[in-house]
């Protein structure tokens, strides 16, 4: 097996991992580091369940080679807020009821965070566009959009 060393920062902490050269960032996060908050849905970039931030940019971790993350900073759902201090997006998801089965939620929260980092006060169209790479089969999206609106308000 051809393996290489990847040095990266995950949720603020440095990590050094040995990984097969064709593996994805998603595999690195879940199977090597055990950060299973990031989900695999389709594995093809359609569903967004594997979304993480790579140097602040929203990406599908299933479509990033682990080696391409060498030297980069990754933020996963485990690094967003803490149990005592939830991120405003997380708090809003709970208050609005934007979570049903929960499988899409980590990706949705990261997509919402990436959006609000760029556009702090988005209109509905911008929210829907910002979340357009994330599928949810339960909620019908309305409550998720409402939650992002609420998070934008509370973050002011």
């Amino acid at each position, binding site marked *: 097996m051809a393996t290489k060393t990847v040095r990266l920062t995950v949720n603020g902490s440095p990590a050094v991992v040995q990984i097969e050269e064709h593996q*994805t960032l998603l595999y690195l996060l879940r199977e090597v580091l055990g950060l299973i908050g990031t989900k695999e849905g389709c594995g*093809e*970039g359609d569903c967004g369940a594997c979304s993480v931030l790579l140097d602040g940019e929203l990406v*599908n971790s299933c479509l990033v080679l682990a080696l391409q993350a060498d030297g980069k900073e990754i933020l996963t759902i485990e690094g967003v807020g803490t149990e005592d201090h939830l991120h405003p997006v997380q708090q809003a998801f709970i208050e609005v009821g934007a979570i049903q089965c929960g499988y899409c939620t980590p990706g949705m929260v990261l997509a919402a965070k990436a959006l609000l980092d760029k556009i702090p006060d988005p209109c509905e169209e911008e929210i829907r566009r910002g979340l357009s790479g994330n599928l949810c089969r339960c909620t019908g999206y309305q409550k998720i959009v409402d939650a992002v609106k609420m998070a934008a308000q509370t973050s002011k």
Partner: protein
Amino acid sequence: MSIRTLSPETPAQALEILSLQEKYLPVAGGTNVLVDLRKGKITPIGFVDLSRFEAWKTIQLKGQVLEIGSLVTHSQLEAHPLIKTYCPALSMGASAVGSPQIRNRGTLGGNLQSASPAADCAPPLLAHDAFLTLLSAADSSGTLKERQVDLTDFFLGVGKTDLRPNELIQKVSININPKRKSIFLKSGLRKALAISLVNLAVSIELDENTAECLKARVAFGSIAPTPVRIRKVEEFLEGRMLDERVIEEASNIVQNEIAPISDLRASEEYRRYLAQVLLQEALRTIKSSKEAGKWLRKQFD
């Protein structure tokens, strides 16, 4: 599965590897390559990661030539002031690709190299007479071999291009013309992550006083095995005023020039209908708009 991944620091090193190793594939954003790998459509023995070539990630104006590095992402294309000013259709086309995640990773070079008939960056670049600079490994003198190809000659078929396995797209260039207005329109099944049923880019240079069409480019995607310019329509438009009768006639001419197929997304008849209405919409918008980039958000209405 054991696939090597090499991460060269320079294009010269990458081209050297590709010239020696036939079954190594270049990978940049990975949004096509890793999907194809997972589906078993490609069986490389190795990848050559291009993602560290910073010089290929820039957009710059050199004299009258707009140079776009092949590793520029769709998100960059969407937002960059030079693209919005001199090639607005490309900004619109890039913004219609995939999803935020895909646009943040997927590159212009990848969009062109994959040669999808529906690639959303292709019609805008065809409508702006873009040409590509392709590089291959250095000869004995040590300089990289370079050749230029017009984008019209680049696409050879579904998934097929003029790019050789030992070559990489370095940049895409456009001779700028501030008088040229352009627009991109797309019809997909959804607003995001939708492969175009039909997409269209039109660029027009209008006489400022008479509103006569001096130069026209009309390029469609998803109506043939490759993105194509419709020269009969361009010739018809040039020298004419963009009035309703001309717009109507132009969209009739299109019908004789395209050969769309029926597939699971749309029937041939529906694609023909879309080609007609998209062209009319594009020409009307260009006619009524004073500024080139003004209708940028139109496609999200």
